[in-house]
């Protein structure tokens, strides 16, 4: 075989690789500059093609996400994922849950490894902008509190000067504590843990004089301590912690779906629609119900879903109140008061824009 033949044969594959590589990079440039979302494939199509939703959860947070003894996930965050899956696939179980720790959660959304992050994430300006998250409505209003032993006599933050305080690393709790102590000019010893459970164990064992976290978490954790009545949560509220699901920035259609799924849950509670009466209410003559449940109008079509997406959601997971009671309410081990997480008509903060 002549020499030139050989060299051509070797050049062709190299050339082909180069072409395909440059093609690849051009494609990625397009998707990175995707300020116009209509041009690129929305995540909705990716999810539909895959046939299931991938949802990032904590997996280690009582009441919000954990694995039950039968191997199924349960919790408030988990039910939000199931509601989204129900809206898209009419099947609340078409979800693959992925446990994420506090640090890797945003990377997982940015790289597209999860479709939705439903992991008790606090909505902040920084996360909305520089971390490139897009937040859905708040599903749980919380505030940071601090728990101490009753016999320690600590009543306010000033009493904790120079004392060791336990918290979880990579969270806003850690930063808020630092801010609050700096504002008051108080030195303290932060004792940080990767794992939230370890932080409470350390507190229970007396390694720290106080433990700080969201108040809901403190309340539920207090019930798990050997002697709950020996601990008290100080009245000081160190921060606002609105916990919301988040998706990656720059995909308006996908954000809208997640956003309106959450609103559906809230609106359903306000209208008194629940998993039991929803089928019956679809036959109602009330235009409010007819529009909300997709019997008339085309609200769902506008989202890229079916018109009866609200019915699908409510049938499978119920309205917000049902979800709350199932996971955090008085019948659970956590017994969290609704507090701010009530409807706006009941002195809470939950409010859904009109469905029309």
């Amino acid at each position, binding site marked *: 075989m002549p020499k030139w033949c050989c060299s051509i044969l070797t050049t062709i594959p190299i050339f082909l690789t180069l072409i395909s590589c440059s093609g690849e990079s051009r494609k990625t440039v397009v998707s990175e500059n995707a300020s116009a979302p209509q041009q690129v494939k929305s995540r909705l199509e990716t999810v539909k093609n895959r046939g299931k939703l991938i949802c990032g959860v904590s997996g280690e947070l*009582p009441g919000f996400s954990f*694995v039950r*003894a039968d191997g*199924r996930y349960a919790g408030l965050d988990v039910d939000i994922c199931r509601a989204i899956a129900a809206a898209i696939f009419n099947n609340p179980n078409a979800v*693959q849950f*992925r*446990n994420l720790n506090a640090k890797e959660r945003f*990377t997982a959304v*940015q790289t597209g490894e999860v479709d939705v992050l439903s992991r008790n994430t606090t909505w902040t300006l920084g996360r909305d902008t520089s971390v490139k998250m897009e937040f859905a409505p708040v599903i749980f209003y919380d505030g940071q509190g601090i728990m101490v032993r009753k016999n320690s006599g600590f009543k306010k933050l000033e009493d904790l000067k120079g004392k060791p305080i336990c918290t979880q690393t990579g969270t806003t709790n850690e930063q808020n504590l630092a801010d609050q102590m700096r504002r008051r000019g108080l030195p303290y010893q932060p004792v940080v843990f990767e794992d939230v459970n370890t932080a409470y*164990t350390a507190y229970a064992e007396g390694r720290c004089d106080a433990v700080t976290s969201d108040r809901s978490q403190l309340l539920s954790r207090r019930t798990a301590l050997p002697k709950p009545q020996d601990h008290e949560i100080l009245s000081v509220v160190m921060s606002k912690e609105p916990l919301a699901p988040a998706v990656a920035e720059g995909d308006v259609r996908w954000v809208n779906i997640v956003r309106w799924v959450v609103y559906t849950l809230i609106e359903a509670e306000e209208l008194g629609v629940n998993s039991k009466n929803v089928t019956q209410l679809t036959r109602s003559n009330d235009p409010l119900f007819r529009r909300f449940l997709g019997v008339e109008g085309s609200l769902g079509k506008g989202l890229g879903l079916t018109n009866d997406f609200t019915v699908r959601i409510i049938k499978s997971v119920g309205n917000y109140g049902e979800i709350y009671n199932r996971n955090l309410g008085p019948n659970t081990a956590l017994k969290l008061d609704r507090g701010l997480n009530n409807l706006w008509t009941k002195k809470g903060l939950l409010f859904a824009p009109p469905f029309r």
Partner: protein
Amino acid sequence: MNDANNPPPLRIRSRTLNWLLKNLFNTWYNSLLTLICLCIIYSLGKNFLYWVFTQAQWTVVTTNLRLFLVGRYPIDLTWRIWTIVGIIIALSILTWGALTKRFLTQITSWLPLIWTLSFPIVMWLIGGGFGLTPVSSDLWTGLLLTLLLAIVSIVLSLPLGILLALGRQSDLPVVRIFSIIYIELIRGLPLIGILFMAQVMLPLFLPSDVRLDRVVRAIAGLTLFSAAYMAENVRGGLQAIPRGQKEAAKALGLNPVLITSLIVLPQALKVAIPSIVGQLIGLFKDTSLLAIFALLELTGIARSILAQPEFLGKYAEVYLFVGMIYWVFCYSMSLASRKLEKQLGVGQR
């Protein structure tokens, strides 16, 4: 008179007594030490046993036993796990029988092949497909995942380690330098760093439509890490082979490939068995680091179980149980390796 009447109990007593006197009470300070130690052991052990039998609430373990062992694997497909356990037990008995020359000795040379063939069957049973219901890898959790990660990583790292060890002793400078750089680089990095790269950084580098499975990424991280250590273990074995073996093979007219594969490697690997098993045990325990990346292996599922509202704060019970599982597996591995060493006559050439 008395001595003559009851000598047997005296002799029995004197044997234990002698042992005690010889080892624990031979001098006054040893006696004192023994008494102090007994006091400490008693006070610690009493509290511990009291806690284990009266205070601890083991319901968290009994209700979640399935979750610890096979994790979120679908309940109606559990028979597949049992089949795997059956296959492994059957193969172990076969191997034991053949190696101790009790029965079926003629299959000894087929054993490696049988074990290798069983691997795809086991993977098929776990993962499904080809006629079985597929089970996606996010449902492979609990002890099942821990064992899978450890075994697959060690099996994959063995050939890689052998190649690196041979490469390090090679006369070709490029191969040698590459092997040395790889081994020293990986050995100089902490495992957690490598796992972090594999779990968090890798997706950032890959194009957006390529998504490697998390379990695959974990196995890749563990394999790359343990290959470097494996290479050093195998190199230790290679260096223990006397020069004469190689020279004799050369004198018989074997080529370098045959010399390595027929003469040097079999002996070197035999020598390296204790350290390879040591590494397997280490790797088995190292898989618990993956819990930090929220992979639901044994430690990860324990952390998830601790979040069940009805079992909040049951750390001691859960972690003690998980620790027991790790210990049972590690100890049986080291027992098995000791038996294997004896059978193969490691250390007596």
